[in-house]
């Protein structure tokens, strides 16, 4: 969508000479809402920070390569430095050992910022319902868009990013501080509180099911700290 769509009259009436690119009666000014202009600018110049760890990262590379070409959506520049990035694309598995790294990258990104969780592993732990894996990065950082798939196809990632663009389109500058305020106390802390984490990461069916299947040869000692029913 071009700037023309934002303008009264749809930018269809071209004035005759000089600077008059935009219509609506006058060649030198346009009337619109400031939100529209700012959001239009923001959403078409997103710089993604690719936090790629595993298989999904390969599909992210494919999305950025010539066949699918993320650059068409204003994401020309992959920003490998979090301080210059707008969207965190978390693609792949995130073990607990990597969790502080992910959190630090999120903390380093300036506002306004968004986060895409790409793939089953980043969104929920995927098949890896195990001791070492974060069960969904939403326990650590706030996520705006989840892209399902294992791995999602590049089209899927692009659709997810377009949903981010849609989300930006609906934001209002008037509520900027309300939306974007960050509590310094929460730096490097989990996003969710304990109860929410336990709720979000409960056994997913798969692993407990496997546990029942185990024919008694795998011996497990019951543990009070363990949230899996033995």
């Amino acid at each position, binding site marked *: 969508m071009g700037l023309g769509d934002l303008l009264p009259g749809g930018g269809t009436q071209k004035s005759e000479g000089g600077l008059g690119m935009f219509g609506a009666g006058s060649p030198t000014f346009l009337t619109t809402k400031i939100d529209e202009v700012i959001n239009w600018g923001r959403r078409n110049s997103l710089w993604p920070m690719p936090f790629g760890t595993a298989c999904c990262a390969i599909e992210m590379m494919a999305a950025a390569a010539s066949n699918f070409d993320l650059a068409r959506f204003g994401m020309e520049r992959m920003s490998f430095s979090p301080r210059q990035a707008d969207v965190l694309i978390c693609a792949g598995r995130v073990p607990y050992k990597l*969790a502080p790294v992910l959190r630090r990258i999120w903390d380093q990104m300036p506002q306004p910022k968004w986060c895409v969780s790409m793939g089953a592993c980043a969104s929920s732990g995927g098949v890896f319902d195990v001791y070492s894996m974060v069960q969904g990065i939403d326990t650590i950082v706030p996520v705006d868009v989840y892209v399902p798939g294992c791995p999602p196809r590049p089209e899927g990632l692009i659709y997810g990013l377009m949903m981010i663009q849609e989300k930006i389109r609906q934001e209002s500058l008037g509520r900027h501080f309300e939306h974007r305020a960050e509590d310094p106390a929460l730096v490097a802390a989990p996003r969710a509180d304990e109860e929410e984490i336990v709720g979000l990461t409960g056994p997913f069916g798969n692993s407990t099911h496997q546990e029942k299947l185990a024919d008694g040869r795998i011996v497990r000692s019951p543990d009070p700290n363990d*949230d899996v029913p033995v």
Partner: protein
Amino acid sequence: MGGLDAVERGPLPSDASATSDSGSAAGESDHPSVAALRAKFGDAIQGDTVHAGDQTVVWIDPARSLEILTWLKDDPGQKYDMMSDVTGVDYGGGRPVEVVYQMFSTTHKRALRIRCKLPLDALEIDSVVGLWVGANWLEREVYDLFGVTFKGHPDLRRILMPQDYAEGHPLRKDFPLRGRFSRAEQTRRALAQDVERFYGPEELVEGGAPQQVAARSEPAEGEG
């Protein structure tokens, strides 16, 4: 098993040398190293068998493992110069944890598998890093995941799990799949870790205070 009679052979004459025996039936090994080992070390060789058709496995006494492995590497008739893999196996149910060495001789083009049974109350064995440098990380991994201590290892720290991982040794059978702590506790501990702490300049020196690090991860045993 097999049901191979029903298999329609392709247009190419099948290679007569392709092994098709029924595998896995344990039997006497005709591997030249086994006889040599028995002749040389006698009762330090606790047993041998053939698994999976043609793979020779030898069980040796862990107390004499370093001596035997040194001989296997250096003796001109053996020359197992490549340590492909060092790993552990835990059968659970209080049975011993086994350390498995998979070796290959690039001179004689032979493979051999050595296994050592370590009782659960004495998970210790001599390190072979002095013989094969490539065993360095492999032994660290066994230490990390099974809790086997390799005596004489230059740098025995955890390798895959965080240095201050407190839940134990994950590949042991009594370790639950989802870990010992609740997910909330795991998340809290993960975000509280300071990844820079373990790499002060003194710890970069090989052999730099491994005992200290081991001590840090020791509480693992007590908890849960």
